[in-house]
Every structure is written in C-alpha cells, then in structure tokens.
C-alpha cells in the first residue's frame, strides 16, 4: 500500500512536491511512514523535520490513513 507525502523547503527541493512510500497497512503510524521514507531517501537523515497531518502538527506515534494529508516540515525560517 502506498502513502503520499507532501514536502516543503529543502525536502521539496531535493525530492519534489510529493513522494510515495510503501507501508504494510492502513491505519499506519507516522513513524512507519517516516521510516519508509528515510529508507528510500537515505540522504534525508541529515535533515531534521516535523510532521503535519491534515494541516495540524502531529507526532510519530499518531496514526494515519490512506486519505489523510501528510506533510514533512524541515526547519522553518519565517520572518
């Protein structure tokens, strides 16, 4: 099963607007999705990021379903 992830900032520059990663089942945990992303994009290990689901901040233990909007947020720098 594939999960789409939206990217921003340096992650978007490196990998594009979105990537798709394979997960075992839905619901999945964000941790599983992130691990799958890291496995396929090993260069990302140097970039810290937070996670948002359905336009709110989330934590790795949160669950996610196929149709949820998921985004990875590298370090912010507004202002």
């Amino acid at each position, binding site marked *: 099963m594939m999960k789409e992830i939206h990217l*921003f900032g*340096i992650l978007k520059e490196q990998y594009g607007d979105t990537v798709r990663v394979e997960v075992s089942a839905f619901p999945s945990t964000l941790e599983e999705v992130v691990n799958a992303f890291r496995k396929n994009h090993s260069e990302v290990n140097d970039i810290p990021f937070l996670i948002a689901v359905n*336009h709110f901040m989330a934590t790795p233990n949160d669950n996610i379903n196929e149709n949820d909007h998921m985004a990875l947020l590298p*370090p*912010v720098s*507004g*202002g």
Partner: protein
Amino acid sequence: MKTDFQLIDNAKGFPDLEQFRSSTSGAEVVFNGIVRTPNKGLEVLYLEFEAYEALFHNEMKRIAEFLESQFQINALVLHHRIGRVLPGELAIVAVVYSKHRKDAFQACEMLMNELKSSVPIWKKEFNSDGSFWVSQTP
C-alpha cells in the same frame, strides 16, 4: 479579538492598518521585518519564501489563542510575503493592538518568536556566493 493573517505575494499587499484601529486600543505596536544585506559578509541578492498555507492559518490561530490567554489584545495582524523579496523590501508586518502599550509590546515580541519557531514558512537566501536554506527550527 480581531485577527488577520495572510500570506501575500507582492509588496503592495500589506494591510492598511487604519481598519484595525479603534478607540478601545490605546496602543498599536508594529514590527516591520525588512530583508537585510549584507548577511554574514555576503551581499544578499534576494530571499525566496515558501509557505504551507493551510498549516500557516492553523498555527496562527493556535498562536493567537495562546497570546490572547497571556495578554489583553484587541487585534492581531500578521502578513508575510511569499515568493521573491529583495533587500530593502518588507518581508513581514506584525501588529498588535491593545488597551495599553506593555501588553502590545510583549505580545508582539512573543508573536515574532512563535512565528520563527513554529509557523511553516521557509526562507532560501540567494547571495553573491550561491544560495542556502535558512534553518532556525526544529
């Protein structure tokens, strides 16, 4: 509390503050963030700002609720540029209206601190030596 949070893509889009003023607000504190050059000894050519708009609005709502719990605030305004911004141009306007100046000053500073730590806006600096993503948090 009246709020107005916007991402704007041109320098003419900043707000006319007259609409937020009222006789109940004795203080209006404005922070104008301007693109600066040089930075770290290099000439800044421009900054490129990118935002995650839906999360921007949700985070700003969360910050506004927090600030309202800490200070007496009548209105809160935050407009941030996205896209290319040149040195000398405004990148951000943050404004707090309050009954008294102390709350307005403190709330405006906290608003900027919160913005820099959690609001999903990203900045890439293009300078005379190349470019880099500016990192503040996490």
